[in-house]
């Protein structure tokens, strides 16, 4: 697949657009607002379908459980707020009311990661994936650009079960199109390669593509890039193939290195085909105020880190390989 920079737009706009399409297609799609409807784009739904929009105020716990009540009454409720409050403030409600009930509630977690920018650490959610992916029944997707967020919103809206869509506030490079593969639980290969696998989600997918290009240009390294948007369910087959074919993996996400996409991938790798892995993500610390791009660079969440981690992972793999060769030689010498 060949990707081009198609300009930029915030992923939250993709959510708003997807929700609008769902509202047009299904009369039982309703939306719950928690006071930030303009910034999380539920406002477009509110304007078009005022009778199917309910504002509960700054009350995310109630929003989640009210949505559950609507879902248990045959509706398809979408609740959206900043991820900090739509995934963690209401964690108990998500766990018990939404997931244990297997209620058909959809949460749009906007303003994820450090790209929230100047609002600072309180609003930069970096721990949501760690919590959410541990929940039975929940579908969890972190799309990579506007178009994919739009598709993801429509897909989870039309698939029964609790779901969380993770997206962001800031402008994000657009590069996928209507024709780019996107299917529930699938981790499509965005760039073929055999020397190293780069698995990323959200804003880091574009960075991974940039890193792959640099690895090729500077070292002739062939990097495979997988779009890890679907964190739950996770595509074990694609991960195991990547481990087998490439022998080393780098994951990248705008989330803590603990408990996120990287951990999810590692669980699959360790169980099926252990290979050296490197993790690009937030290094166990909180964010801070700044401009989105500036923060990504400050915390090492750009292609540069993926590039460097890829070289490290490859070196580790090759060292393991040469150590193994040496061992085999020693053994054969001994047996002579």
């Amino acid at each position, binding site marked *: 697949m060949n990707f081009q920079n198609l300009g930029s737009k915030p992923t939250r706009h993709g959510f708003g657009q997807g929700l609008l399409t769902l509202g047009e297609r299904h009369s039982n799609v309703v939306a719950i607002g928690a006071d930030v409807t303009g910034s999380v784009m539920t406002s477009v739904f509110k304007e078009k379908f005022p009778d199917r929009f309910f504002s509960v105020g700054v009350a995310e*716990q*109630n929003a989640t459980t009210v949505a*559950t009540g*609507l879902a*248990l009454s*045959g509706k398809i409720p979408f609740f959206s707020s900043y991820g900090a409050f739509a995934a963690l403030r209401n964690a108990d*409600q998500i766990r018990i009311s939404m997931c244990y009930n297997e209620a058909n509630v959809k949460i749009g977690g906007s303003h994820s990661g450090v790209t929230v920018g100047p609002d600072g650490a309180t609003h930069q959610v970096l721990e949501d994936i760690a919590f959410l992916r541990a929940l039975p029944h929940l579908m969890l997707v972190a799309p990579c650009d506007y178009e994919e967020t739009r598709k993801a919103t429509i897909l989870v809206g039309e698939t029964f079960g609790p779901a969380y869509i993770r997206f962001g506030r800031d402008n994000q490079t657009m590069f996928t199109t209507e024709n780019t593969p996107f299917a529930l639980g699938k981790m499509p290969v965005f760039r073929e390669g055999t020397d190293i696998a780069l698995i990323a989600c959200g804003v880091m997918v574009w960075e991974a593509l940039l890193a792959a290009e640099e690895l090729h240009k500077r070292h002739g390294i062939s990097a495979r890039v997988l779009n890890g948007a679907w964190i739950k369910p996770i595509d074990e087959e694609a991960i195991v193939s990547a481990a087998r074919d490439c022998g080393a993996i780098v994951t990248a996400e705008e989330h803590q290195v603990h408990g996120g996409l990287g951990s999810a991938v590692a669980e699959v790798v360790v169980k099926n085909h252990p290979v050296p892995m490197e993790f690009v993500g937030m290094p166990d610390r909180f964010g801070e105020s700044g401009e989105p791009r500036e923060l990504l660079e400050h915390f090492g969440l750009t292609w540069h880190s993926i590039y460097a981690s890829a070289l490290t992972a490859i070196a580790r793999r090759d060292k393991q390989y040469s150590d193994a060769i040496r061992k085999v030689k020693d053994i054969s010498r001994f047996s002579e």
Partner: protein
Amino acid sequence: MSIDNKQRTNTELHEIATQIRRDIIRALLPAKSGHSGGPLGSTDILSVLYFGGILRHDPTNWQWADRDRFVLSAGHMCPVLYAILANAGYFDREELLTLRKLGSRLQGHPGFDMKLPGIETSTGSLGHGISIAVGMAISDKLVDRNSRRVVTLTGDGELQEGSCWEAAMSAAHFGLDNFCWIIDNNDCQIDGRVKDIMSVYPLADKCQAFGFDTIVIDGHNYDEIYMAFNKFIANHTNKTGKPTCIIAKTFMGKGVSFMHDRYEWHGKPPSAEQAEKALGELV
């Protein structure tokens, strides 16, 4: 016991409530854990709700699309709900003896995934049920625009969970006259008296101020219970746009002398000896 959804005499209700209380004790004995006090205290009001023609329901076709819904927000009080559902004919009374056992549909706190007839949602984390019930009432009144009603019951200690008040705020804001919130006000919680642990009082003033048509009743007096439910039905029928709150003053462990008004009985089951004594009193 079959159910015919009509108003019943106090004698009939007393008989039904006694049978429910006996079944609560019978279920808790083999379970060896669980909550005795709250279920016994809320038996009277829930007996009127289910057997006195208030809730429109059909045990033989429990998912009937036009049914009213009851959500037990205080999920730990499920022994009373299970006993009521069994006696109403939702499932066999003998299944009550499986309470809290591995594989049972009668989970320690209601589990929607167990598909027990009559259970509308999982509850157990305090404060969730009332919000879910608000969501159901929004769906009925503002989306489907039907004439169904939703009743929920919270404890009084439960109201220390702040999200209950988020739910209360929204019920009034959306004008949910199809929504009735019963507060089982026994002033007991695990650690002691509600007023000592963290006071929720003055309760009636709070609920009134939150926009509820609020009624305080003796939760063991059938006439008062009927009066309160009829007020709710009138609020709904007359489209007053006001949700109803019934504060039912009850005694924890009602009907069993040694449990009466004792918070120690919030979360424990009777021993064999205690169960025998309790059943001897519940006649």
